[in-house]
């Protein structure tokens, strides 16, 4: 199968935007946290889970999705949010805890909700599985052609919620796709220490659904596998499980010393960085010229700078706004 050129270009641009975004967040996160690192300090306090390296999982899937399709991401959500089309300004402002953020600073980086593109994420392992299955159920009941996708880390596959949602999606034959981002680690625990099988795709058989393993963090292979799954889902053939071999170029969260990682592993992964690899592919296949790619890189850069600028310039929320939005006020007629 050959990937359409515009899809490749979109994937590259989106990966570049996500990468740039994460790099800027990383640097700004450290502001105010030196010399003494205290998570509570600086313009972006709290935990920060970056997704650098995992962009193929985001773009290869979201390339097939529209704003009505529903996606839940994990505690490591930025790449997926960006690929799903979450407004970058409101997202950045949320991460900075500003009034103009997606939730006015109530949620923060692990709780990004954007109803305009049916995206959300959460901080509890495998917690996004059920909501995505539920959205898929709604689509099915309303005879709408949309799909719902839940992202989980490879370690999340051992959480009960994952199993229950997989079975439910299969019993009800819902337009649902589970993407397992297998970066090999759940914080400090390697996959072999937590998971009874090396390849989670085999677990699809427990639900009578197709299971696919995508090797080598390759956006194009992800694109192909996801395309099949989305087609199956939209045409009423039920759910699919896709596990993508990927890696994180940063620690579990910012501040993670990563002493647990075997020596050489990080370096080897960095040398397989999917972003330059995709760029090389695009050049090699003459899909875009070096100039066009540079233009895309520049576009990504300025998009991100605008978002960061917007976030920095935005007002802090009024302290009392902490007390509102606990309930939605409007009541249906």
């Amino acid at each position: 199968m050959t990937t359409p050129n515009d899809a490749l270009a979109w994937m590259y641009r989106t990966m570049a935007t996500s990468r740039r975004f994460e790099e800027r967040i990383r640097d700004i996160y450290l502001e105010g946290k030196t010399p003494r690192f205290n998570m509570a300090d600086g313009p972006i306090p709290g935990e920060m889970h970056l997704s650098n390296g995992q962009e193929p999982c985001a773009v290869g899937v979201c390339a097939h999705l529209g704003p009505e399709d529903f996606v839940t991401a994990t505690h490591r959500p930025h790449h997926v949010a960006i690929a799903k089309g979450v407004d970058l300004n409101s997202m950045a402002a949320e991460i900075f805890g500003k009034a103009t953020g997606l939730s006015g600073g109530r949620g923060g980086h692990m709780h990004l909700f954007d109803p305009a593109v049916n995206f959300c994420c959460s901080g509890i392992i495998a917690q996004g599985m059920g909501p995505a299955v539920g959205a898929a159920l709604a689509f099915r009941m309303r005879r709408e052609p949309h799909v719902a996708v839940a992202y989980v880390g490879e370690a999340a596959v051992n959480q009960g919620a994952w199993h229950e949602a997989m079975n439910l999606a299969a019993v009800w034959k819902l337009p649902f796709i589970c993407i397992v981002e297998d970066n090999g680690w759940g914080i400090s625990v390697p996959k072999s220490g937590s998971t009874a099988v090396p390849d989670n795709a085999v677990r699809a058989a427990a639900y009578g659904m197709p299971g696919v393993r995508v090797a080598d963090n390759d956006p194009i292979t992800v694109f192909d596998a996801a395309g099949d799954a989305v087609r199956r889902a939209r045409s009423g053939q039920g759910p699919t499980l896709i596990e993508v071999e990927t890696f994180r170029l940063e620690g579990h969260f910012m501040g993670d010393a990563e002493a647990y990682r075997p020596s050489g592993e990080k370096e080897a992964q960095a040398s397989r960085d999917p972003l330059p690899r995709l760029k090389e592919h695009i050049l090699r296949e003459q899909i875009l010229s070096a100039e066009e790619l540079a233009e895309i890189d520049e576009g990504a850069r300025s998009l991100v700078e605008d978002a960061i600028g917007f976030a920095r310039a935005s007002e802090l929320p009024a302290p009392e706004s902490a007390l509102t939005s606990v309930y939605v006020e409007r009541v249906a007629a």
Partner: protein
Amino acid sequence: MNAQSSSVAKKRKLTIAKAMSEAIAQEMRRDSSVFVMGEDVGVLGGVFATTQGLHTEFGDERVRDTPISETAFISAAVGAAAVGMRPIAELMFVDFFGVCFDAIYNLAAKQSYFSGGSVSCPIVLMTSVGGGYSDGGQHSQCLYATFAHMPGLKVVAPSNAYDAKGLMLAAIRDDNPVIFMCHKALQGVGWLGTEPRAVCHVLREPYEVPIGQAVVVRPGTDVTLVGWAWTLHLALEAAATLEAEGLSAEVIDVRTLAPLDIQTILESVRRTGRLVVVDEDYGHCGLAGEIMARVCENAFQSLRAPPVRITYPDVPPPFARVLEQHVLPSAAKVVDAVRSLAVPS
């Protein structure tokens, strides 16, 4: 509007189970986004008859039996709600909340807050509570405080069929997650005894009982008795006994456990000067203590005696009838408590 002020229509009496099913059916006819899912809610019509007749009328698609996967189907309700559906899910016994509470308190309850109010979560979670029929320590709990403690949830617990229908309609129409607790001793299913006062006249047409409003169900002057669900009936029974002794007890049905209508209670206590709260949930960090605390914070000067509570002691529900009856609240315990307050005769 309450059960007493009902219309001129023929006095049709319903059980809480029937009232719940009727409310759901009426709302399902009106609003195609409403649907029901849970264990045995389909052909069986709900173990506690909460969905009686619905499967026949609405079919498999809108009345869905689920696997025994509470986390999956309750969090699925949250996702379906996020894209515009209004799911009603059933957690068969509240005691099972421990396998799925994350979906309830971290997901449903916080969807509005995390989204700054831009994503609502209009779900109703029906669940049965309470003991008294020897179902043992994992099938007899109330856990009112556990749910009421969590911001973002609304929690209702009707004491009669009239309120059950009105609260159910209000709950389905509410854009926020509502926990609807139905007490097994009031439910009116064939295989359990039923408190007769819970079976009462219920209007045919749809109506709402507002969430967040307590109600004075019996006026009185000497002491305020506060209860809800099953304990409301203990309070009423105690009030009748006390009346024979010349003591006038005002009885309040809390109805909504969160957000709590403390005003109705405060107004009463300001008049009576005495408070007894009856709670079938565990005492430590329970709603009874919370009500006492709020009364002391806000009407301290009005209290002519220390507030008193009758609660489940801090022990798991025992199986044997003689043990369970020993630990359950009772009208006699309420009467004793009131007498101990040295109310002037």
